[in-house]
Structure formats: C-alpha cells, structure tokens
C-alpha cells in the first residue's frame, strides 16, 4: 500500500470514527482490510481505497470503518470491573435509587455483546433484590455487523470459554449445534443501537453508570476530552464511569475524578470537598478496604 492510500485511510478513519491510526499500527490495515476486500470481491486494499475515494460506494467506507473499529471482547473481561459493579456499585445504587427504583446503564462500546450480557448476568443473580426495579442496559457500537451478533447472542465454543464461568454457561445459554446462544430472558435485558461516539449524545438520555472501556485509547487527546465531556453531560452528579485498565481521565478531563482504590472507576467531579456519597456507602468502603 502506497503512502497516498495510507494517508487517505488515516484521514477518513479519523474524520468518520475518531480512530487515530499511527504509522506503527499500519500493519492493522493489512490484516483487517484484506479480508474486507476479499468479502467484497475486490482486488486487494488498493481497489478498496479507490472505491472508498470515489464516494459512490458508501458500503465500502462503512465496511472499512467497521473492520478497523471492531475489537475483540469476552465475557467478564478483566474481571475486576465486574467485581466492583457487583460488590460496590449495585449496592450503592440500590440504596440511592430507592425512590425511583430505576438504574440506567450504558455500554458505550458494546462490541459483540459480552460486556452488557455479563452485567445482565450479575443483575439477574440479585434475584428478589431487584424485583420491581427498572434496570435498563443499553449497548451501543459503531459497527452494525458486530451489533447484529450482540443482538443474536450467538457465540462460538471458544468465545464462551474465555471468562465465562461454566455455571453461567449452563444457566444463561442454550446450545445450538456447535454454538451457544444467550437465553431470551437475558437477551431481553439489553437493548442495542448503532451509535458513533463522535455524534451528538442528545438522543441517548441519562445514565447512572457508563462502561466505556478500551475505546478512548484509539482517540487523540482532544477527541477523548470531547467524548468525556459529553458522557459527563448525560450523567447525574453521582454517576460512575468505568474505563479500561490502560485508560485514564487524568490530564485529559477534570469532569471526572478517580475513586481511590477502585481502579478504572471514575465519578462525576464535584465542587464539594470530602468523600462522595458513593465512597461513603458501607459496601463501597468495605470493597475498597
């Protein structure tokens, strides 16, 4: 691939999806776009670029963006954020939202659905504790292909063996030939929609808890700050943001502050000094000790 094609793809990906593709990661173009060209019966990346450039094939552009922004996911990935969600976050919100009995959760890069379904499993395990509660989980992703997979909830044997305890496999999945499908009760707990984090958040609504893990790493500083600002706008003062292990808000945004001892979890910054209601909750204090 010539430098002209690389520059075109680099600019297009930045403009359309915010993805920053450095030259060191140019190998990703080859490994991810050659299969796309093959699928579209095109003669390699060069022809893919020609089609994307002439603007007459929007589906080519979309396929390139989807291929470059789709990242692997697995159930209970990194485990710790899910422990925090189960042991600290949910006990806090079950107390703090007693009046409304509503909790809204957004997985901002839902990918093939493993993260939102992992959260749904944790919620389901609460049983009678959340009876009568209205807990919404919204999963969004820029890729419609990957969201189709999430909606179908159909996973390979390999995928259900990475991170998913076998007890959860038999409880929440049905076997279909060589695949495993998430049971309809669990699938119905999650709503999905296509969404580009560069677009306006106005139509999304408000969320108590936002999972935006392993996404910001692909954006430049300015885009990261803009996305964090828009996330903050759609959260209440006691909202919580979960980022990936290699991500932080420090040096990027002062709208969120890290929660001591809960790595990867940030709360909406407050003007008041002292620990927040979340940090003072007994379950949170116990988990963090």
């Amino acid at each position, binding site marked *: 691939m010539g430098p002209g094609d690389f520059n075109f793809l680099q600019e297009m990906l930045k403009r359309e999806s915010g993805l920053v593709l450095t030259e060191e990661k140019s190998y990703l173009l080859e490994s991810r776009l050659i299969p796309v060209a093959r699928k579209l019966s095109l003669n390699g990346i060069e022809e893919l670029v020609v089609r994307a450039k002439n603007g007459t094939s929007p589906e080519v552009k979309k396929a390139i963006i989807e291929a470059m922004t789709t990242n692997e996911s697995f159930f209970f990935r990194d485990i710790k954020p899910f422990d925090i969600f189960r042991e600290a976050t949910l006990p806090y919100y079950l107390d703090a939202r007693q009046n409304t009995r509503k909790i809204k959760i957004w997985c901002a890069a839902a990918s093939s659905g493993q993260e939102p379904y992992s959260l749904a499993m944790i919620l389901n395990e609460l049983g009678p504790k959340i009876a009568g509660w209205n807990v919404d989980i919204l999963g969004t992703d820029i890729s419609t292909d990957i969201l189709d997979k999430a909606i179908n909830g159909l996973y390979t*044997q*390999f995928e259900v*063996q*990475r*991170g998913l*305890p*076998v007890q959860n*496999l*038999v409880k929440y999945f049905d*076997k279909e030939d060589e695949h495993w499908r998430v049971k309809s009760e669990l699938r119905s707990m999650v709503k999905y929609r296509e969404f580009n984090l560069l677009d306006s958040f106005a139509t999304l609504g408000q969320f108590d808890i936002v999972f935006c893990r392993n996404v910001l790493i692909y954006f430049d500083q300015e885009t990261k700050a803009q996305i964090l600002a828009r996330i903050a706008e759609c959260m209440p003062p006691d909202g919580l943001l979960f980022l990936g292990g290699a991500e932080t808000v420090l040096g990027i945004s002062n709208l969120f502050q890290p929660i001591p001892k809960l790595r990867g979890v940030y709360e909406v910054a407050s003007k008041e000094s002292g620990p927040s209601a979340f940090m003072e909750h007994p379950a949170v204090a116990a988990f963090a000790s």
Partner: protein
Amino acid sequence: MKSCLIVDDSKVIRMVAKKILQELDFETVEAEDGQVALDLCKNQMPDAVLLDWNMPVMDGIDFLKNLRQLPGGDGPVVVFCTTENDVNHIQEAMEAGANEYIMKPFDGEIIQAKFAQVGLL
C-alpha cells in the same frame, strides 16, 4: 509451585497440556486413565486436576466421584477437559464435584482463563 495432575488417555493431549501448564508455572504429573490418577492421588493430592472424560479402565466422571470420597479428596480443583460438550455432561460433571469445564479443542488462553477463574493463578 502448584501441582497439576493431567489425566488423559491421549499422549498428545497430555503433552500439549503439560507444555501449557508448565508455562503457567505448574509442576505436572500425568496419568493415562482414572484408575492410575486415583492411585496417584491416594499417594499425594495435587492442587489441580485437568481431567478427560472418556478413558479406558476408569473414566473421568468415576475418577472424580471416587476422588471426592477420599480423605483430602475435596482439596484438588478439578477442571474437566473433554470433547463432551453438551449441557447434560457439563451438569453431571458439576454435580459430581468438578470446579470448571473446558470443551475441547482447547488452547493456552482457555486453560489460563479457566484456571484463573477457579483461583489457581
């Protein structure tokens, strides 16, 4: 260093599992069927057992049931590793006292993920 008993009648599978487990810092012992594995456990309980289902002499499920009856037999973490991949087999294994379940084919990532899940890593 934790120990893992690899029980499988396939020499190739034992060899692959041994390599993966040694990279995860396990000391490994091998058995080609459930009876040999049971005799080894009577002598010394391992920390973990990676267990095939279909084997001659004594299969994996009978080994597990016998193991859990032995003094100290509730100690080892048992991870089934088998081509049996239907819900009934998984449930039978869990009821017999298995801690986790791997469906073959497996690779290093799956073994590592499952062993981490049950607290072995």
